[in-house]
């Protein structure tokens, strides 16, 4: 037995090459920060190179479905399947963009002597998310979730002298630590019931009568507290507006896309691997459990998006408005999960890929304008469509796409979601989601109205650097093109619904 462990470990190292490259980049960043502490200009470029190499190794894993770090002949700690690959691509692309954002951010520039910490912790977050996405064991999920959280607590308060940075960081820390502690208590009860923390093993033991239903239910609800905090669904959303408004805008954008993606990946894996009973022919999942999962998820999803959309109506700060809008989008994505079928999962993946471009894009334009006018209040955007026609138009594009109007990509995301809902005979739910989209139209278009229909005598001028222009186009072009030509994305998503062992 003992002799078998070492070759298994060495073989497994081959399947986590992307994570290894990320860790080496983290070490390289810290070392070069220590050795060349006079000049920190090249730190973002080390990060970019690390991310590109990671991407190359990740592409090598395309189409493979391997277990890594086996604990017995069937069970493993990590599962590297097409599903995790899809989410890892999302995280890598968004991290790449966030590093590019950070180069042109004035907020991050102000702490330039601490750039080593900034990029190092950013890589801490990325490694945490990578392990979280493919983790197949509750303890590994918990540890990687904490690695992600601990790095992001510090990054949320990166500018130490800024009052709102510090406040965001404290609030994130208190809510985050409490909810992950509650999650750990849930895991400990689950361990007591089943004697294991492996998701597949729990799935095999779940039907034995030894498990008390009430205890089991309580432990699962406690675990949902930890995951729900990461994706900011309604009972656990309190931190979102404050942290998103207070944190540096690059970190806000990263939290709203990458950390949410990791949270959703864990949620889907936890639901599907732990509770799956059987598949009906057309890709619907039959979940075991003592409660009606579908109704529970639908209720959470509807409350989440209704709350997010209505609260966003009253916001005067663009960053805070985008925070509420990201809560609403978490609601739409939950709706895709609640279909509990492969088609619903495809809708979630497509939606997430598109959401990444449009949400990051909106934050980037807000950042570029805030660099100049030092404000994110919507009132300060008066007439910006005239003085900055290019930036105004691009922001308009992203906001229209977030609403989900054709011909932008956001429409395709919503379309696939509604098709999945209608196919599963959830017409009422689809109508509620549609009405929610109408509500969201009001607050997105309000920004456009302020920018383009109200004249202002103040003129703002921004000299867009070539880098910023390229980054903007990198997000604006997919937002437009994926609205018209989306079949490659959909087929990529279709190949990615495969979880290990299913």
């Amino acid at each position: 037995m003992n002799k078998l462990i070492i070759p298994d470990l060495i073989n497994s190292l081959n399947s986590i090459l992307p994570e290894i490259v990320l860790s080496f980049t983290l070490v390289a960043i810290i070392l070069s920060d220590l050795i060349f502490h006079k000049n920190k200009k090249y730190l973002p470029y080390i990060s970019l190179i690390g991310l590109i190499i990671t991407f190359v190794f990740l592409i090598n894993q395309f189409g493979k479905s391997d277990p890594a770090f086996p604990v017995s002949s069937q069970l493993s700690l990590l599962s590297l399947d097409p599903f995790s690959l899809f989410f890892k691509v999302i995280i890598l692309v968004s991290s790449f963009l966030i590093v590019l954002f950070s180069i042109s951010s004035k907020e991050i520039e102000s702490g330039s002597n601490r750039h080593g910490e900034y990029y190092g912790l950013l890589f801490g977050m990325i490694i945490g998310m990578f392990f979280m996405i493919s983790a197949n064991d509750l303890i590994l999920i918990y540890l990687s979730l904490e690695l992600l959280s601990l790095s992001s607590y510090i990054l949320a308060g990166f500018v130490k002298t800024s009052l709102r940075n510090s406040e965001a960081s404290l609030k994130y820390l208190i809510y985050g630590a409490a909810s992950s502690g509650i999650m750990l208590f849930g895991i400990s009860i689950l361990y007591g019931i089943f004697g294991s923390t492996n998701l597949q093993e729990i799935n095999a033991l779940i039907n034995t009568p030894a498990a008390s239903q009430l205890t089991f239910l309580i432990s699962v609800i406690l675990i949902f507290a930890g995951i729900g905090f990461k994706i900011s669904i309604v009972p656990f959303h309190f931190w979102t507006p404050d942290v998103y408004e207070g944190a540096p805008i690059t970190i806000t954008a990263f939290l709203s896309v990458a950390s949410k993606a990791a949270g959703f990946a864990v949620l889907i894996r936890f639901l599907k691997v732990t509770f799956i009973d059987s598949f009906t022919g057309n890709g619907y999942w039959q979940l075991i459990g003592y409660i009606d999962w579908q109704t529970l998820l639908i209720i959470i999803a509807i409350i989440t998006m209704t709350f997010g959309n209505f609260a966003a109506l009253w916001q005067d700060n663009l960053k805070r408005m985008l925070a509420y809008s990201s809560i609403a989008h978490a609601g739409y994505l939950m709706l895709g999960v609640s279909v509990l079928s492969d088609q619903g999962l495809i809708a979630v993946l497509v939606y997430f890929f598109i959401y990444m471009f449009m949400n990051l894009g909106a934050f980037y334009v807000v950042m570029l304008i805030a660099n100049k006018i030092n404000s994110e209040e919507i009132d300060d955007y008066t007439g910006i469509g005239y003085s900055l026609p290019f930036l105004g138009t691009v922001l308009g594009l992203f906001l229209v796409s977030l609403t989900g109007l054709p011909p932008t990509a956001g429409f395709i995301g919503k379309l696939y979601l509604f098709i999945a809902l209608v196919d599963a005979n959830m017409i009422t739910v689809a109508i509620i989601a549609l009405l929610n989209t109408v509500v969201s139209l009001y607050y997105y278009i309000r920004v456009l109205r302020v920018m383009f229909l109200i004249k202002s005598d103040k003129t703002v001028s921004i000299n867009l650097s070539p880098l910023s222009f390229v980054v903007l186009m990198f997000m604006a072009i997919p937002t437009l093109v994926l609205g018209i030509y989306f079949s490659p994305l959909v087929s990529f998503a279709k190949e990615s619904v495969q979880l290990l062992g299913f």
Partner: protein
Amino acid sequence: MEVGLNHFLVVSTLLFSMGIYAIVTRKNAILVLMGIELILNSANINFIAFSRYGNFGLQGHLIALFVIVLAAAEAAIALAIVLNIYKTLSTVNIDEIDNLKD
């Protein structure tokens, strides 16, 4: 009377409840963080008790070790953030730190 699994579970549940109570009612950030430590340690007691009385091997003990290390890291980061708040605002009362509100 012999000490059994139930005794440990009662202690851990009490600790958990006290932790939640501290998080909900305390105004001082440091006391809230102490509540969080209580929750983590209650989970640790659970892990070790289950692993000892359920004959699950040493896995529970290992998990508890991981959690202890993690709790230390979390405490270090939390105290650094609270210290930074104290430097800028000269208070650690959570109710007074409310500049970000609608």
